[in-house]
C-alpha cells in the first residue's frame, strides 16, 4: 500500500504547480479566446471566428517566425556541436572553465543581453563596417534587419543547444569510439557512425529547446528588427497591450501553441522518438 502512495506524494508538488500555473491559466486563456465584443465589454460567446482571423490575418508573421526560429536553430547547432565536442573530448582541465563560459551570459538578464546587440550592431560600429566590406550589410546597416533578429535568437538560445549536446557527448562510453577505430574505421567514419548517433538525444533535445522558445520570442524582433521583421510574438504582444484585443491575442496564442506542437511532433517522428528518449534506446 505504502509503495503505491509514495509516487503520488512525490508527484504532488509538481502536479500542483502545473495545475496552478499552467492548466488554470490555459483554461482562462481558452475561455478568453472565444469571447467577442469590443474593448471594455468582451463576452463569452463561443466565437470561433477569432481562430479564423488569427490564421488568415497573421499568416505572414507565422511563416516568418518559423523561418527565423528554424534558421536560428540551424546556426546554433552548427556553432554548438563543435563547441560541445571540444568541451567534452578535447578541453581537458579547461572543461569546467569553458562550461562556465557557456553559462556565464545567463548571469545577465535576457533583455540586457539583447540590448547589448543594439550597441554591437549599431550603424557606426566597426562590426558593421566589416560586414559591409564583405557584402553582408546590403544597406550599410545590420541593425533593423532580419539577419540581426536571427543573430540575436541564435546567440540568446545557444546555451540551450550546447548543454544538452555536451551532456550526451560526455556520457558516451569512449571504449565504443576506440572500438570503432580498432575496427579500422577512419576518424570521420567513427564520428558519423558512432559518436554522432550516440549524441543524437542531445541534438534532438537541444534543437527543441532552441526552436520552441525562439518561435514565440518577441524581444529580439522588437529591438533588432524593423517593421518587416516582426514575429508572431510581437503580434500577440501588440494585440494584447496595444490594441487591447484580448480574444484575438488569446486565440493567436493557442494557434501558435498548436502549430509548434504539430511541428515538434513531425520532427520527433522524423528524428526518431528513441533518440529523444535517450538511454532506453541504446
Amino acid at each position, binding site marked *: 500500500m505504502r509503495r503505491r502512495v509514495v509516487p503520488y506524494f512525490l508527484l504532488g508538488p509538481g502536479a500542483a504547480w502545473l495545475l496552478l500555473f499552467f492548466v488554470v491559466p490555459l483554461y482562462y486563456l481558452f475561455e478568453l479566446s472565444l469571447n467577442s465584443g469590443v*474593448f471594455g*465589454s468582451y463576452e463569452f460567446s463561443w466565437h470561433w471566428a477569432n481562430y479564423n482571423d488569427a490564421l488568415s490575418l497573421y499568416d505572414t508573421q507565422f511563416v516568418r517566425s518559423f523561418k527565423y526560429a528554424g534558421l536560428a536553430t540551424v546556426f546554433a547547432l552548427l556553432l554548438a556541436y563543435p563547441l560541445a565536442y571540444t568541451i567534452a573530448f578535447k578541453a581537458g582541465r579547461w572543461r569546467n572553465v569553458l562550461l562556465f563560459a557557456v553559462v556565464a551570459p545567463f548571469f545577465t538578464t535576457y533583455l540586457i543581453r539583447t540590448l547589448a546587440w543594439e550597441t554591437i550592431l549599431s550603424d557606426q560600429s566597426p562590426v558593421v563596417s566589416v560586414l559591409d566590406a564583405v557584402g553582408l550589410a546590403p544597406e550599410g546597416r545590420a541593425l533593423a534587419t532580419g539577419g540581426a533578429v536571427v543573430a540575436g535568437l541564435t546567440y540568446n538560445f545557444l546555451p540551450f543547444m550546447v548543454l544538452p549536446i555536451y551532456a550526451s557527448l560526455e556520457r558516451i562510453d569512449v571504449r565504443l569510439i576506440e572500438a570503432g577505430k580498432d575496427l579500422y574505421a577512419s576518424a570521420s567514419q567513427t564520428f558519423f557512425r558512432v559518436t554522432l548517433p550516440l549524441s543524437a538525444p542531445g541534438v534532438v533535445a537541444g534543437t527543441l529547446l532552441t526552436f520552441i522558445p525562439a518561435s514565440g520570442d518577441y524581444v529580439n524582433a522588437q529591438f533588432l528588427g*524593423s517593421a*518587416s*521583421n516582426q514575429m508572431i510574438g510581437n*503580434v500577440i504582444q*501588440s494585440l494584447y497591450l496595444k490594441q487591447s484585443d484580448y480574444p484575438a491575442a488569446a486565440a493567436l496564442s493557442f494557434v501558435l501553441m498548436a502549430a509548434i506542437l504539430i511541428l515538434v511532433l513531425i520532427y520527433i517522428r522524423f528524428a526518431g522518438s528513441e533518440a529523444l528518449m535517450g538511454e*532506453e534506446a541504446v
Partner: protein
Amino acid sequence: MASEKDPRRITALLAVLVAAVVVALGLAACGGGGDSGINGGDTESEEVKLEKKASGDVTISNWPLYIDKQTVPDFEKETGVSVKYIEDVNANEEFFAKMDPLLKQGESGGRSLFVVTDWMANKMHELGYLQNFDKSALPNFEKNLVSNLREPSYDPQREFSAPWQSGMTGIIVRKDLAPDVKSICDLFDPKYKGKVEMLNELRDTVPLVMKCLGIDPTNASEDDWTKAIDKIKSAAESGQIRRFTGNDYGADLTSGNAVAVIGWSGDAVQLQADNPNIEWRMPTEGCILWSDNMVIPIGAPNPTAAEAFIDYVYDPENQAQIEAYVNYVSPVNGVKDVLLKDEPEIAKNQLIFPSDSFTKNCTIQPSPDAEEEQNLNRAFNAVLNG
C-alpha cells in the same frame, strides 16, 4: 528501470492530469460569476466622499521619472499623510489591462490616484471607472489650472480629471545629420531612407502624418485616419522608416542610427541637454498636444488624501519643484514666475513654457470614435508588425 513502463502507472498519471483539468474547470466556473458590479456606459459618476482633514495612507500610481525626489516627502510633512508612490504606469493600454479586472469589480487595487492620458481618462470615465472630484477641497486646482486646459471636450467642467503634465509630440532631429528636416512631410524624404523612426502610438504618429497630408486631425473621419495609415505603411514597406519605437528612440538618435524621429517634447529637453547635436523641431504643420491626468478611480481608499495631493501640486511653488525635474509642459499658472527667479534657463525654454505663437498650429490629441478604434488599431498595428 522496467517498472517505469508499467501501464498502470501511466494510467495513474493520466488520472492525475484529468483531475487537474477538472479542478481547473471548477475554479474557472467560480471565477466567471463575478461580472456584475459596475455597469459599462454609465457616465453618471459618483462624487468622492471627503473627510474633514486629509490623514492616513494613500497610494499613487504614476509613470516612471515623472516626479522629483522631494515633492512626496514635502507633501507628507505638510499634511501628515503617508504616501506610497509607485511608478507602475508604463503605457495606457498596458495599465488598463492590469486595472480593468479590478475596476470591473469596483476596486482600485489600493490605488487612490493614478495618472493616464486624455483618451484613456475618457475611456475609463465612459466605463464608469472614475469618481468625480469634490471641488470644495481643490481651491488651488480651481484657481491655477491654465486656461487652455480648462475645457477639454471629454471633461468640459474638469469634473474627474486634473492634468498632471502636458506635452507636445513633434520632430526630434540630429541637427548635424539631418539639418533640413522641418516638417512631418520631410520625414518621407528618400534622402533619409532607413534613418527615420516614428512612435508606435496610434494617437501620436497618425494625426501628425494627417497634418502632412493636409487633413485636420480634429474630427477626422475613419477614411482620413486610414489615408494616413496607408502613407505610413508604404514608408515602412519601402524601408524609409527604420523602425517604430517607444521612447527608446533616444538611444537611436544618440548613436546616429536614426537622424529624425517623431518624439515627445520632454524627451527632447533631456536629450538636448545630454547631446547638443540633438534638437527639437516644431513641425511646420504643427504638433500634437496631449495631457496626462490625475484621476480618482472607483473604490479608491482615502480620496480625501488623494484630493489633498492634487491640490498640493497645483500650488505654483510646489509645481515649480516638479517642473524643474520633469521638463514637460506644466498645467499650472504662475510656475514660470517662480522659476524665473531660481531656474531662468527652464523658465525661458519654449518646450517647457511654450508661447501661444509657438504652438499656434498644434492640435489637441484626437482619438478615433469607439466604433472606428478597433479597425484603425488593427490597421496601424498591421503596419507596425509588417
